[in-house]
C-alpha cells in the first residue's frame, strides 16, 4: 500500500498517519479515531473501520477478529435535525 494513500476519506487521514498512531501506542480503533480523526467524519468510519482493524491486526500480530469492535454511536445514518 502506498504510504500516502487515504484510509479515511471523510477526514482525509492517510495510511502513514494511522501507522504512526499505532506505533505511538494506540491499540484500538477508537483510540486511533481520537488521535487521527479517522472515522470521525460524515460516514462515521463505515469505510475506514475495517482497514484500520486490519492494520491493527497486522501490526500487533493478531487476527482481525481479535481487534475490539468499536461502539457504534447513534444515529446509524446521518439525519437532518428537522425530523426531530
Amino acid at each position, binding site marked *: 500500500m502506498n504510504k500516502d494513500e487515504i484510509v479515511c476519506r471523510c*477526514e482525509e487521514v492517510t495510511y502513514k498517519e494511522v501507522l504512526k498512531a499505532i506505533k*505511538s*501506542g*494506540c*491499540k*484500538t480503533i*477508537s*483510540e486511533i479515531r*481520537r*488521535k487521527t*480523526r479517522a472515522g*470521525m*467524519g*460524515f460516514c*462515521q468510519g463505515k469505510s475506514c473501520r475495517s482497514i484500520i482493524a486490519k492494520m491493527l491486526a497486522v501490526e500487533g500480530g493478531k487476527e482481525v477478529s481479535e481487534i475490539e469492535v468499536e461502539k457504534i*454511536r*447513534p*444515529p446509524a445514518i*446521518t*439525519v*437532518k*435535525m*428537522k425530523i*426531530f
Partner: protein
Amino acid sequence: MTNKLYTDVLIIGGGVIGSSICYYLSKKGINTVLVERFGISSGSSGACDGFIFLQSKKDKDLCTLTLESLKKFTFLSEELSYDTEFEKCGGLVIFTDEGKFRLLDDKSGNENKSENRKRSSIISKKDGIKGNNYIKKIDRLELKKIEPFISKKVIAATSCGDEGQVNPINLNFGFIEASKRNKAKILTYEEVVSFNITQNENYFNEDITYRRKISKVYTANREIIPEEVVCACGAWSKKIGDMAGTKIPVIPRKGTLIVTEALPKIINHVILDFDYLCCKYEENRELGFTIEQTKSGNLLIGSTREFAGFDDRVDFNKLSKVIYRAKEIFPFLGEVSIIRSFCGFRPYSPDLLPILGKVQGFDNFWLAAGHEGDGIALSPITGILMSELIGEKINSGKILNNFLGVDLKKFSPERFNKV
C-alpha cells in the same frame, strides 16, 4: 508477579487531568508513571465539549484558577508541540427570557426573592474576574452583528472576550506525548486491580494515630511500587477510593452531546444558554443548550446534566429536547445533519468544587477529581497545582496550603470528612 516497577509518582487515569499532572510532574524531572485502564481519552475527556468558560465560575477562587488556566492555554500548543486547537473566540451566555436577564441587575436584598438572587449570582460578575467591564451585556442588535444566524427569540446576552475553546482530545494527547518526551512512562490498557496498604503508628501527645500508606499497586501483570499515588479517575474515582478504603464522594453526572456534519464558519463564539448554567446548580433540572463550532467545522451541541449512573446509552427523548431547543435558537440547524451523538460522565462533586489535594489519613494518596464540567478548562492549572503539591512534599516533606493566593483547604478532600 515478575514485572516490578519503581516510581516516584504513580498517576491513575489517562484523561486530561491525569495526563496534565503527569506532564507537569515530568517537566520537573520527577520520575512519573501513568496507568490507564483503556486508551488515552477513553472516558470523559473524549466525550465532552471544549469550552473554556469564565462566566459559569461562580466561586471566586475557582475563577482565579480558571484565569490562570486561560493564560497557560495561550501558549500551550507551542509548549507541548501539539496543536490543541485553542482559540480565544469569546463566549456568550444567551437569554430568551427578559425577566431572567433583568435579574442580573437585581441587587436588592429582598429575601423573598432568594431563589431569583441565587440565579442571578450564577453569573459571576465581579468577584474573581478583574475589571468592571470584563463581562459585557449585549442587546439584540449587537448580538445580531456578532452572531448573525441567531434567532430573534434571543433577547440579550452577556459576553466575555477572554473565553475560548480547545480540542479536549488533542489537549489530552498533547500532554501525553510531551510527558513521554520528558521520560514519563505511560501504560495504557492496564487496569489497577488492587492496592497493598501498610499502616504506620504515629505517636503524638500520647495519642496513637494510624496513617496508611499505599505501598504497592497491582495491575493484571505488574507490581508498581510508588512513593506517591494520584487518583485522577474523574467520575470513576470512587472505585479507586473503595480499593484504598476511603470514601471519595464523586458521582457521575451524565451529559449527552450531538455532533453535526462539518460546516463553513457559521458560529463565532462558544455559546451557553442561561438555562444550562442553572442546571448545574439545580439538581432537578437536566436539560440545557450549548453550542460551539470546532476547528474541523463540526458543530458540537449539548447538553444534559443528569444523574443516571454510568448508563452510557443516548436517551432519545432528551436528545430530541436538546435538538428542539437548538433549533429554536439557531433555526438553520433544521437543515443540518447529525452524524453522531454520545454521552459522557462529568465527575460531580457534592459542593460543585473540584477535589484537589492529599487524602486524609494517608501518607501518600492524592486526589484530583470532581471538576464536573470544568475539567478541560481547569486541566493545565490542576496539573500545575498538583505537581507543586507533590513536588514540594517529595523535596521537603511539607504540604502546601496556599497556591496563587488561593486557600487550598477549600479544595482539599478533607472538607467532606467533617461533621
